[in-house]
């Protein structure tokens, strides 16, 4: 068990380290020169240029800069934004809260809605199943930005139950403001989870050990709870974990659609402005969250599947 935990932890750190290198190297290799942005296209004296380069450490060799940057990241300094002339950490702080709230909100919707719909579809054959299956087929074909646009056009123009733009202030008001974005973010993922749940439960219903339980006269309710749902949740957990982790990236699109001032919008702005330190920081942060979330799910696995508890395969 300890070995299993350590193995996962080492894997996590390795992945994070390599990701940081990839992120840094990618932007180092970028053909656009941040200096030209700093100078705003004006002619500057070679001296000023050198000073600027020094200020942003652009005159150092690649590995030195990478080491510096990584050291800073480890101490919580994500670098200086070239555009805002501010520490990126400061710029990210408040925005990260909005994004985290949005992702969390959507995750709750996805897990509750998806698993509930999938379970109902699996257990009640007939019109209910067909209806949910049709719903998931449509839901899967709905990109988050399309749902966002649809929600905006309904709630901004026709009915005004929910606010369409802005972040709000205070937790309740913010959640109120984040409702539509969270729904937009959750729709297609809920459909996916519903589908996986339905498939997993149907498969489990047909399993031999369920036949055994039936053969012993165990009441249906108990069979469903103790055998079908319990075992079916194993594959669902895997997919739900990856899906929720993936919301971190998906939020970029939704934030943009609803003009939310979160990490995603910040990332898109920074890309448009060639603000490399900011892009580096945000991408790294998102990758880190994604990787950590998937590792957490991996670590949960032995708890729900005893076959995994002895350190991996079989």
């Amino acid at each position, binding site marked *: 068990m300890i070995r299993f935990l350590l193995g996962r932890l080492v894997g996590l750190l390795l992945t994070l380290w390599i990701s940081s290198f990839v992120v840094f190297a990618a932007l180092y290799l970028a053909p656009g020169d941040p200096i030209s942005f700093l100078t705003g296209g004006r002619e500057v004296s070679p001296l000023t240029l050198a000073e600027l380069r020094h200020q942003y450490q652009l005159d150092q060799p690649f590995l030195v800069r990478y080491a510096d940057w990584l050291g800073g990241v480890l101490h919580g300094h994500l670098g200086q934004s070239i555009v805002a002339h501010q520490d990126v950490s400061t710029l990210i702080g408040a925005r990260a809260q909005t994004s985290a709230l949005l992702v969390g909100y959507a995750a709750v919707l996805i897990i509750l809605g998806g698993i509930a719909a999938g379970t109902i579809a699996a257990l009640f054959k007939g019109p209910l199943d067909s209806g949910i299956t049709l719903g998931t087929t449509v839901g899967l074909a709905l990109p988050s930005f399309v749902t966002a646009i649809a929600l905006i056009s309904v709630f901004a123009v026709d009915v005004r139950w929910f606010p369409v733009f802005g972040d709000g202030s205070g937790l309740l008001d913010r959640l109120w403001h984040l409702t539509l974005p969270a729904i937009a973010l959750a729709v297609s993922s809920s459909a996916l989870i519903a589908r996986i749940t339905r498939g997993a439960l149907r498969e489990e219903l047909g399993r031999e050990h369920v036949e055994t339980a039936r053969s012993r006269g165990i009441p249906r309710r108990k069979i469903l709870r103790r055998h079908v749902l*319990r075992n079916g949740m194993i594959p669902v957990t895997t997919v739900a974990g990856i899906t929720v982790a993936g919301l971190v990236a998906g939020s970029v699109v939704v934030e943009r659609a609803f003009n939310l001032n979160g990490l995603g919008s910040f990332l898109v702005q920074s890309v448009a402005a060639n603000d490399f330190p900011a892009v580096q920081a945000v991408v790294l942060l998102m990758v880190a969250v994604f990787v950590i979330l998937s590792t957490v799910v991996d670590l949960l696995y032995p708890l729900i599947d005893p076959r995994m508890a002895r350190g991996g395969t079989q």
Partner: protein
Amino acid sequence: MTELLTVEDLRVALPVQGQMRTVIHQASFAIGPGEALGLIGESGSGKSMTARAVGRLLPAGAQVSGQIMFDGEPVLELAGAALRRYRTTDVAMIFQDPRAHINPVRTIGDFLTEGLRSTLGMRRRDADRKAVSLLAEVGVEDGERRLRQYPHQLSGGLLQRVMIASALVANPRLLLADEPTTALDVTTQSEVMGILDRLRRDHGVAMLFITHDLELATAVCDRISVLYAGTVVESQDAESLHAAPRHPYTAALLASRPSLTVRARRLPVIGGRPLAAFEAPEGCAFTERCRWASPVCEEGRPAPETHDHGQVNCHRTTELGILGSEAVVTEPVIAEPDKSSVQSRGQQP
């Protein structure tokens, strides 16, 4: 003798891709209290489905006709609580593959005591104690520790013993054993079969024993029914079936199995392949493989003829009587060796 279980004219069809497909045409047999009946057949003969029909475990959408009586109760009409009670306390099933038939994410203890606790309302401590004593009976020591283990931590032979213990835990009156030892090694099979046989006799439980192994069935069963293509073709006392088969299929089956004690120059062979129930033609299903087949065999299903030791379903049984191993067609499987040498042919330029 009043029978514990009687199955009469059982017919089962299952939906396969939207069409009903017959898996059992005509199965009739009976089991007395404490008696063991072997149900023999090759793949596709419908033997597993027969056991499932008795246990009311057929897949959804199955069409069943005929009659199954358990202790005077019509099994096919049971529903709700009565059906659950039947499954809990009257019959218990032992499956072929314990690895698949025991929930992998629950402990052995949970598996053994689930029925006791949820359907008989026994308290956990009492249920555990009963489970441990049953484990000891099937030869599993340190039951306390085993109860906390998971199925993947046990070998196949051990898991099948756990399955047997779980079948006996609620003191059923009939065991449905579906090839309980087929997946095991020979020596393990012998051990597990010995345990099953002893416990069954000790507890006075009747058994429907499904297998493809005639020798094994002869050793552990009082009577044997032979299934071919979804039809029971012969039922006899185990000893006399082995010694004096009356249906050509039984005789052929007995003869074509290589012997442990004698090497045959050529094995007597039944030509063709075993038919699945849905492929069976109008007349006797065995006709096209039968050495004694005559035009009369194609005219409808043969009715059962009773004799001293049992019943046989064969149109020509009065003419044929008891069959020896000469009942078997020895078909030349391959053409006569007309080529000089098979091996040298590919060498030619």
